[in-house]
């Protein structure tokens, strides 16, 4: 059985079509990452799966329960880690966890022992009595995750949980995700950091402009761009002077410029780079730096959309 199944999910806000028929699935026990730039529709998709937004069309199911037809059953199997900290700053870490545990139906000794376990998981057992408002950003994020783990959900959704935190807390959160997944939890993880998606995921769904434009394992997605290499070039002048010449150069499959930086997908960088230098010289443009990257998810996104992932 698929732990998460999303079928042709659509959401419109007036004339704006935020999600335009997203479909993907995650098998039980895997980590599925939703990767895409800001505004790709990831969060709107997550809100619909979480039951916070009613889809304009389509449906999603959690452990076989439709989020539109059986919302209570779907939510009972689901833990949601919102993008922004959603905790009570004037309650202690423990009081927060106890309250959220009760919202998931936990009571008495079961609640107490589970809160203790979660405090250990998030590494805040020694700070459990401190008010969350006094915590650092990273510590708050850990409690934010802990609140979604209390009822041992089969599926956990994490919406960009590492945004704006220090490297140490980020590493802690990523380790938490790996650990939870190893315990059998299905994780739906949204991010715009390709490194996180590459490290954590069994499958990755790449979203852009409200659509899932690619779905597969990390290797399958890389294979989409074949052996192509990404080259980032900076120039001493406007890119327009050289862009049309380079676009016609043999071995260049895609080329685009943003903020004075030119990004190109090429078949063989060893052969193509000298041609790019020659062409630039002929139009009196000087190359000031070159960065060559082996195929990765950024390359895939560029290949699929013609734009960089972080544009």
């Amino acid at each position, binding site marked *: 059985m698929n732990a998460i199944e999303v079928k042709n999910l659509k959401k419109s806000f007036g004339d704006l079509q935020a999600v335009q028929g997203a479909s993907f699935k995650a098998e039980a026990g895997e980590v599925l990452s939703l990767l895409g730039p800001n505004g790709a529709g990831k969060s709107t998709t997550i809100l619909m799966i*979480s*039951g*916070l937004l009613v889809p304009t069309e389509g449906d999603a199911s959690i452990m076989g329960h439709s989020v539109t037809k059986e919302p*209570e*059953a779907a*939510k*009972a199997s*689901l833990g*949601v880690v*919102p993008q*922004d*900290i*959603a*905790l*009570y700053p*004037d*309650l202690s870490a423990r*009081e927060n966890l106890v*309250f*959220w545990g*009760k*919202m*998931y*139906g936990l*009571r008495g000794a079961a609640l107490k022992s589970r809160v203790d376990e979660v405090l250990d998981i998030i590494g805040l057992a020694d700070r459990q009595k401190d008010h969350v408002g006094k915590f650092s950003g990273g510590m708050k994020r850990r409690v934010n995750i802990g*609140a979604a783990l209390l009822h041992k959900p089969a599926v956990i959704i994490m919406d960009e949980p590492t945004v704006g935190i220090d490297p140490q807390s980020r590493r802690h959160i990523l380790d938490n995700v790996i650990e939870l997944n190893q315990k059998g939890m299905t994780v739906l993880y949204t991010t715009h950091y390709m490194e996180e998606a590459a490290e954590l995921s069994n499958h990755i769904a790449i979203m852009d402009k409200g659509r899932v434009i690619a779905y597969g394992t990390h290797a399958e997605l890389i294979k989409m761009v074949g052996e192509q290499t990404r080259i980032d070039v900076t120039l001493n002048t406007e890119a327009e002077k050289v862009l049309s010449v380079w676009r016609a150069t043999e071995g260049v499959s895609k080329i685009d410029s943003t903020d004075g930086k030119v990004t190109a997908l090429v078949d063989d960088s060893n052969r193509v780079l000298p041609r790019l230098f020659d062409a630039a010289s002929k139009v009196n443009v000087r190359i000031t730096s070159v960065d060559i990257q082996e195929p990765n998810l950024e390359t895939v996104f560029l290949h699929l959309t013609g734009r960089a992932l972080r544009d």
Partner: protein
Amino acid sequence: MKIIDIAFKDLTRSTRNMFLIGMTLAAPLLITGLMYFAFGSMTSGDVSMTAIKVGVVNADVMPADSPLEVPLGGNIRSMFFDDSVKSWITANDYADEAAVRAAVDAQEIGVAVIIPKTFTEEYLAGKMDTAITILQDPTLTIGPTVVRDMVTSLLDGVAGSGITYKIVNERMEANGQALGPTGISVLFERYSKWYTDFQRAMFHTPEKAALVVTSPAAGGESSDSTQNMMGLVMVGQLIFFSFFTGAYAMMSILEESEEGTLARMFTTPTNRTTILAGKFLAVFLTVILQGVVLMIAGRFIFNINWGEPDSVALGLFGQMFAAVGLGVLLVSFIKTSKQAGPVFGGGLTMLGMISGLFTTNIQLPDAFNAMGNFTPQGWVLKAWRLSLAGQPAIEMLVPFIVLVVMGIVMFAFGAMMFRKRFA
């Protein structure tokens, strides 16, 4: 069970919110306390007035062939030694004018009353300008004024009785009769009775008929008036701040919406009706808790008698229904917590003024009082006035029912708006 969990969580947060604590408990008690210290001492039974020290020189002697049994100066002297004034006048006899002057100069006494040697003689001779000398410590104002008023009041009576004596005596002599000592006593007695009745009729109350100052310590009636005044002041504050609390506590739903915790609650297997019910329950409990604490504090700090227990219960529950209903309604129109300041501050203050919450001790025109019938605060005030007056619960049924209906209507409308907003 989750309803109680949500309400308990909100109550816990409320107890840690210093602003809310200040506005729900400290502010109403402080304002009432200020009124108490500003005005309560004028009538309070707990504040004692310093006794006036009076020195009396009674030099009056019985003239030869006097029809009286004792000289009249003794009547004036005895006024300052009477049991009824002992709590606020301390009087002592002095031998002569020099001794009493020395006592005033040494500030041993505040006022000296000197009754001349010829007082009775001149009275019987029909002279109406007999002088009684009053000496005073120049640093004092109230004490000497009080003593002067007492003497003046007495002399008015003495002068009147003197005229009466003179006329009666002349008429009797014309008829060949004489007014003996017994006759003079009867005359004085009847005149005194008439004079007292006349003053009572003039001032309506016996307390004001002559210079009668009620001892603060013994004045049961003035203590009651303090209680009544403080009760009304406190009721005004209790009502105003309970409506503020209802609105402010309800605002937590907006704050939770902004903080993301409300959305997070919606992702749990808890339906929205339960979540809203939990939020509403917290507001009910906060308002009732505030009411109970303030009433207990009012009882012990300001000695306010809130009324019969069942009347008090009706007043408190009526207030709770109205305060929560208006709070839910107001907040349902507000989009963000930042809008709450002007809405609560302006709206609730305006309603409070219209309802007369800040003028509970002032007699206002009927037209102004009628405006209170259109506000929930006005009806709560009606209910509390009845309870404070010791009315039984049956007398409070009308305002109670009006408040419950108002509260339910406002609550239902506000709840509908919230359900729509968070659907």
